[in-house]
Protein backbone atom coordinates (compact mmCIF):
# COMPACT_ATOMS: atom_id res chain seq x y z
CA UNK A 1 0.00 0.00 0.00
CA UNK A 2 1.42 3.36 -1.01
CA UNK A 3 1.58 5.94 1.77
CA UNK A 4 1.78 9.71 1.75
CA UNK A 5 3.14 11.48 4.79
CA UNK A 6 2.20 15.09 5.32
CA UNK A 7 4.01 17.48 7.62
CA UNK A 8 3.30 19.28 9.73
CA UNK A 9 -0.04 17.82 10.81
CA UNK A 10 -0.99 21.05 12.60
CA UNK A 11 0.20 24.57 11.93
CA UNK A 12 -0.97 27.80 13.55
CA UNK A 13 0.62 31.06 12.39
CA UNK A 14 -0.10 34.77 12.28
CA UNK A 15 -1.63 36.56 9.33
CA UNK A 16 1.03 37.73 6.88
CA UNK A 17 3.52 34.94 7.58
CA UNK A 18 4.72 32.42 5.00
CA UNK A 19 4.44 28.65 5.39
CA UNK A 20 5.27 25.42 3.62
CA UNK A 21 3.48 22.07 3.86
CA UNK A 22 5.25 18.91 2.74
CA UNK A 23 3.93 15.68 1.27
CA UNK A 24 6.38 12.77 1.04
CA UNK A 25 6.31 9.18 -0.13
CA UNK A 26 8.69 6.39 -1.04
CA UNK A 27 6.45 5.58 -4.01
CA UNK A 28 6.19 7.19 -7.42
CA UNK A 29 2.84 8.65 -8.46
CA UNK A 30 1.56 9.46 -11.93
CA UNK A 31 0.26 12.77 -10.58
CA UNK A 32 -0.29 14.50 -7.30
CA UNK A 33 -3.20 16.65 -6.24
CA UNK A 34 -3.75 19.14 -3.45
CA UNK A 35 -7.18 19.59 -1.91
CA UNK A 36 -8.62 21.94 0.67
CA UNK A 37 -11.41 20.78 2.94
CA UNK A 38 -13.64 22.96 5.10
CA UNK A 39 -15.56 21.58 8.11
CA UNK A 40 -18.71 19.74 7.03
CA UNK A 41 -17.71 19.72 3.37
CA UNK A 42 -15.93 17.42 0.96
CA UNK A 43 -12.42 18.12 -0.34
CA UNK A 44 -12.14 20.66 -3.16
CA UNK A 45 -9.38 20.29 -5.72
CA UNK A 46 -6.83 23.12 -5.75
CA UNK A 47 -4.28 21.86 -8.26
CA UNK A 48 -2.92 18.80 -10.07
CA UNK A 49 0.79 18.43 -10.83
CA UNK A 50 1.87 15.81 -13.32
CA UNK A 51 5.45 16.36 -14.46
CA UNK A 52 8.46 15.87 -12.19
CA UNK A 53 9.76 19.29 -11.14
CA UNK A 54 6.54 21.02 -12.15
CA UNK A 55 5.63 24.23 -10.35
CA UNK A 56 2.13 25.71 -10.39
CA UNK A 57 0.94 28.93 -8.83
CA UNK A 58 -2.55 29.78 -7.65
CA UNK A 59 -2.50 33.38 -6.42
CA UNK A 60 -0.48 33.22 -3.17
CA UNK A 61 -0.18 29.41 -3.26
CA UNK A 62 2.76 27.70 -4.98
CA UNK A 63 2.73 23.95 -5.57
CA UNK A 64 5.77 21.91 -6.57
CA UNK A 65 6.08 18.28 -7.64
CA UNK A 66 9.38 16.61 -6.83
CA UNK A 67 11.71 15.63 -9.67
CA UNK A 68 11.19 11.93 -8.92
CA UNK A 69 7.40 12.36 -8.55
CA UNK A 70 7.51 11.04 -4.99
CA UNK A 71 6.97 14.25 -3.06
CA UNK A 72 5.34 17.64 -3.25
CA UNK A 73 5.15 20.91 -1.38
CA UNK A 74 2.62 23.68 -0.92
CA UNK A 75 3.93 27.13 -0.07
CA UNK A 76 1.63 29.96 0.99
CA UNK A 77 2.90 33.51 0.92
CA UNK A 78 1.45 36.16 3.21
CA UNK A 79 -1.15 33.84 4.73
CA UNK A 80 -4.66 35.20 5.28
CA UNK A 81 -7.32 34.04 7.78
CA UNK A 82 -9.30 32.81 4.76
CA UNK A 83 -6.55 30.26 4.11
CA UNK A 84 -7.55 28.41 7.29
CA UNK A 85 -8.59 24.82 6.58
CA UNK A 86 -7.47 21.22 6.13
CA UNK A 87 -5.02 20.76 3.27
CA UNK A 88 -4.75 17.28 1.79
CA UNK A 89 -2.30 15.91 -0.73
CA UNK A 90 -3.32 12.90 -2.80
CA UNK A 91 -1.28 10.80 -5.20
CA UNK A 92 -2.73 8.94 -8.13
CA UNK A 93 -1.33 5.42 -8.32
CA UNK A 94 0.42 4.49 -11.53
CA UNK A 95 -1.34 1.12 -11.71
CA UNK A 96 -4.86 2.19 -10.89
CA UNK A 97 -6.75 4.50 -13.21
CA UNK A 98 -8.54 6.39 -10.50
CA UNK A 99 -7.49 5.39 -7.02
CA UNK A 100 -6.16 8.31 -5.02
CA UNK A 101 -3.98 7.79 -1.96
CA UNK A 102 -4.44 10.64 0.51
CA UNK A 103 -2.10 11.99 3.13
CA UNK A 104 -3.44 12.51 6.64
CA UNK A 105 -3.80 16.23 6.08
CA UNK A 106 -2.39 19.45 7.50
CA UNK A 107 -4.74 21.50 9.61
CA UNK A 108 -3.79 25.12 9.05
CA UNK A 109 -4.98 28.00 11.25
CA UNK A 110 -4.20 31.58 10.34
CA UNK A 111 -4.71 33.97 13.25
CA UNK A 112 -5.69 37.60 12.56
Amino acid at each position, binding site marked *: *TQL*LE*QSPQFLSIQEGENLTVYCNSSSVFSSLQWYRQEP*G*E*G*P*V*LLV*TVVTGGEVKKLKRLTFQFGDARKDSSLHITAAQPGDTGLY*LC*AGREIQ*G*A*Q*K*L*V*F*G*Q*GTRLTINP
Partner: protein
Amino acid sequence: DAGVTQSPTHLIKTRGQQVTLRCSPKSGHDTVSWYQQALGQGPQFIFQYYEEEERQRGNFPDRFSGHQFPNYSSELNVNALLLGDSALYLCASSLYTGELFFGEGSRLTVL
Protein backbone atom coordinates in the same frame (compact mmCIF):
# COMPACT_ATOMS: atom_id res chain seq x y z
CA ASP B 1 -25.86 21.97 -12.70
CA ALA B 2 -26.02 20.02 -9.46
CA GLY B 3 -22.78 18.71 -8.11
CA VAL B 4 -22.36 15.46 -6.22
CA THR B 5 -25.17 14.95 -3.74
CA GLN B 6 -25.11 12.54 -0.82
CA SER B 7 -27.77 11.40 1.60
CA PRO B 8 -28.31 11.32 4.46
CA THR B 9 -25.98 14.04 5.70
CA HIS B 10 -25.94 12.72 9.25
CA LEU B 11 -27.08 9.49 10.84
CA ILE B 12 -26.67 7.58 14.08
CA LYS B 13 -26.68 3.79 14.30
CA THR B 14 -25.91 1.23 16.96
CA ARG B 15 -23.37 -1.58 16.82
CA GLY B 16 -24.47 -4.53 14.70
CA GLN B 17 -26.90 -2.54 12.59
CA GLN B 18 -26.69 -2.02 8.86
CA VAL B 19 -26.53 1.27 6.98
CA THR B 20 -27.04 2.39 3.38
CA LEU B 21 -25.59 5.64 2.08
CA ARG B 22 -26.56 7.14 -1.27
CA CYS B 23 -24.75 9.22 -3.86
CA SER B 24 -25.89 10.99 -7.01
CA PRO B 25 -22.97 11.91 -9.26
CA LYS B 26 -22.38 15.19 -11.00
CA SER B 27 -24.24 15.42 -14.30
CA GLY B 28 -22.32 13.69 -17.08
CA HIS B 29 -20.13 11.63 -14.76
CA ASP B 30 -20.13 7.84 -15.04
CA THR B 31 -17.77 6.79 -12.25
CA VAL B 32 -18.35 6.85 -8.50
CA SER B 33 -15.72 6.31 -5.82
CA TRP B 34 -16.31 6.00 -2.08
CA TYR B 35 -13.92 7.12 0.63
CA GLN B 36 -13.97 6.84 4.42
CA GLN B 37 -12.55 9.75 6.40
CA ALA B 38 -12.06 9.17 10.11
CA LEU B 39 -11.82 12.19 12.38
CA GLY B 40 -8.48 13.93 11.93
CA GLN B 41 -7.40 11.68 9.07
CA GLY B 42 -7.25 11.85 5.31
CA PRO B 43 -9.82 9.98 3.20
CA GLN B 44 -9.24 6.24 2.68
CA PHE B 45 -10.33 4.63 -0.61
CA ILE B 46 -13.10 2.06 -0.20
CA PHE B 47 -14.03 1.16 -3.78
CA GLN B 48 -14.88 2.51 -7.21
CA TYR B 49 -17.81 1.73 -9.49
CA TYR B 50 -17.88 2.10 -13.26
CA GLU B 51 -20.43 0.60 -15.65
CA GLU B 52 -22.28 -0.86 -12.67
CA GLU B 53 -19.29 -2.96 -11.62
CA GLU B 54 -16.77 -2.64 -8.81
CA ARG B 55 -13.51 -1.80 -10.58
CA GLN B 56 -11.10 -1.26 -7.70
CA ARG B 57 -11.24 -1.94 -4.00
CA GLY B 58 -9.24 -0.67 -1.05
CA ASN B 59 -8.39 -2.53 2.15
CA PHE B 60 -11.88 -2.75 3.58
CA PRO B 61 -13.65 -5.91 4.78
CA ASP B 62 -16.54 -7.55 2.97
CA ARG B 63 -18.94 -5.84 5.37
CA PHE B 64 -18.53 -2.89 3.03
CA SER B 65 -20.37 -3.39 -0.24
CA GLY B 66 -21.76 -1.19 -2.93
CA HIS B 67 -23.83 -0.88 -6.00
CA GLN B 68 -24.08 1.37 -9.02
CA PHE B 69 -27.35 1.84 -10.85
CA PRO B 70 -27.93 2.40 -14.59
CA ASN B 71 -28.34 6.14 -13.93
CA TYR B 72 -24.80 6.10 -12.41
CA SER B 73 -26.01 6.78 -8.87
CA SER B 74 -24.50 4.59 -6.20
CA GLU B 75 -25.05 3.12 -2.76
CA LEU B 76 -22.61 2.13 -0.05
CA ASN B 77 -23.78 -0.54 2.38
CA VAL B 78 -22.08 -1.41 5.64
CA ASN B 79 -23.23 -4.46 7.60
CA ALA B 80 -22.62 -5.40 11.23
CA LEU B 81 -21.53 -1.90 12.16
CA LEU B 82 -18.62 -1.45 14.55
CA LEU B 83 -17.74 1.58 16.64
CA GLY B 84 -14.71 2.06 14.38
CA ASP B 85 -16.97 2.57 11.38
CA SER B 86 -17.86 6.01 12.71
CA ALA B 87 -16.56 8.42 10.07
CA LEU B 88 -17.39 10.81 7.27
CA TYR B 89 -18.19 8.82 4.13
CA LEU B 90 -17.35 10.71 0.98
CA CYS B 91 -18.58 10.02 -2.51
CA ALA B 92 -16.63 11.32 -5.49
CA SER B 93 -17.77 11.27 -9.09
CA SER B 94 -15.80 11.62 -12.31
CA LEU B 95 -15.45 10.47 -15.83
CA TYR B 96 -13.45 7.24 -15.67
CA THR B 97 -10.00 8.86 -15.82
CA GLY B 98 -10.95 12.39 -14.95
CA GLU B 99 -10.88 14.77 -12.02
CA LEU B 100 -12.77 13.72 -8.91
CA PHE B 101 -15.55 15.92 -7.56
CA PHE B 102 -16.49 15.21 -3.95
CA GLY B 103 -19.84 15.48 -2.24
CA GLU B 104 -20.21 16.94 1.24
CA GLY B 105 -20.27 13.50 2.80
CA SER B 106 -22.46 11.47 5.12
CA ARG B 107 -21.45 11.64 8.78
CA LEU B 108 -22.04 8.23 10.41
CA THR B 109 -21.92 7.81 14.15
CA VAL B 110 -22.02 4.30 15.57
CA LEU B 111 -22.93 4.01 19.26
